[in-house]
């Protein structure tokens, strides 16, 4: 089951880090970084059903 209730240990920190990770990158480089990040997180999650729920949620939002 995809967790959609609040689950981040330090939401502000993690969000700020996400933005900082992109600092100084061109738009294309940022897109490429995002793609790598998604793949890394997909692997961490692992479960195909959870991933499908996440993709569906992202598409609907």
């Amino acid at each position, binding site marked *: 089951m995809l967790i959609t209730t609040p689950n981040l240990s330090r939401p502000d920190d993690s969000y700020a880090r996400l933005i900082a990770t992109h600092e100084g990158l061109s738009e294309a480089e940022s*897109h*490429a970084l995002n*793609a*790598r990040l*998604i*793949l*890394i997180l997909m*692997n961490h999650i692992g479960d195909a059903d959870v991933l499908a729920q996440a993709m569906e949620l992202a598409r609907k939002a």
Partner: protein
Amino acid sequence: MTAHSTLAFTLYPYARSADQDRTTPAHHKVIVVGGGPVGLAMALDLGLRGVPVLVLDDNEGVGEGSRAICFSKRCLEICDRLGAAGPMMDKGVVWNVGKVFHDDRLLYEFNLLPEGGHAFPAFINLQQPYFEKYLHDAILAAQAKGAPIEMRGGNRVTQVTPDATGATLEIDTRDGSYTLRTDWLIACDGARSPLRGMLGLGFDGRVFEDNFLIADVRMKADFPTERWFWFEPHFKSGASALLHKQPDDVWRIDFQLGWDIDRKAELDPAKIRARVDAMLGPDVSYDLVWTSIYTFQCRRMDRFRHGRVLFAGDAAHQVSPFGARGANSGLQDVDNLGWKLAAVMAGQAPDSLLDTYEVERIHGADENILNSTRATDFITPKSPVSKMFRNAVLDLAATQPFARTIVNSGRLSVPCTYDGSALNGPDSDQMPPRSRPGSVCPDAPTPEGWLLNRLSTGFTLLTINADAPETLTAHGQTIPRLALTTTPELTARYLGSANGAVYLIRPDHHVAARWETYDEAAVTKALARALGKDA
């Protein structure tokens, strides 16, 4: 396509048949149209079962040009059952290592090294003309032993009229046309299947908007016997490239050229050489053996059975070559259809058994189409975003093993398991999933030779540490028992945690049902089911 202009081997030269002089059409039991790998294997399978079969092909042998080069373990096992695998193994090149490059970086290498204890390797590389020739040699050997197989080269089918009891064919030869009548017609006439067209049947699916230049080159080079695949190669000869070893010092080279190309200009040998030189380096000398440009499709017919007309091989389904699933899956069609048609013709099974050919092989075709569509999409991304993700996977694959599992330059053909088939009987949850009903019997060494060699040409009752009578006679079948005791391989592949195992195995070496102990009523019931009598 440049193929078929000249012949690599003349195998069945045109010879006038007495049928051509008849005033009323000669009547045949089974006619196979097409003498490619699938038609040849089909004739061999039926002939070895004693079913009279006539093969009609518009050529007189195998065309120049290789097309298929990778033949899978399952394909070889089927050819072995048909008596053709020996020369294939002698001539073929065994390979296990694949390397994947992006630009000028080696991302990773993989080893197909199959588990031990199998007669055949995961793959051999062999030019398709040899593959066809060895099947034809096996036909000659079978004919010499009395197998009722007849080959007619230079016979082009121009018209088909199917009806409830068979079909009438119009055939063109250099001596003019003639008519034949057949009870059963098997269309193995390739991806462009004229028969499909004559019957007005569709062939829907996807065309990949990309051209692939295939060059087979002969060279004495000390590249290792490995499969090398480049995404976006640094030598810029294509958007992707492949290098793969074949027998006779021949190497298969593939370049992805893109969609908008000038075919004629690209086939200019000078231009091809420029691409090959960039890849191999300036110091390597080679001959161009065969070149061609292909676009690839993934598609299949809605139905493989139309009454007494059955479609098999590329005529029924077509895939891109990534994953080597074309000829390999065609041979599995043959494996599935041969015993079923023989049983129906002998009155041992209802006509509806042939419907399960379609169900099981459509299941296989869909699996192959899915796999090769995904590989093709990975190799030739269709949108900027898809390319971005593809390259993100490649970037990660250099250092992250997880990303290598996503890299897809072709998932190499493995046999399909007929999960959910109406022919499947009981399963035992104590036994390994890999040999569940519907799956191909895994090979294993036994004291008297390879397991698959010891299965009968009909059904077999395999027992491991279990009692059973030496033969079971039921539903028109006399089923021999193959009694084995445990070995590490048999335990891992068949027994699992059960104390004993009884397997009912189909003539195509797929598992029909399995139990821990023998129960005649249960086995007889499963046999009826496997013969389609339960539907």
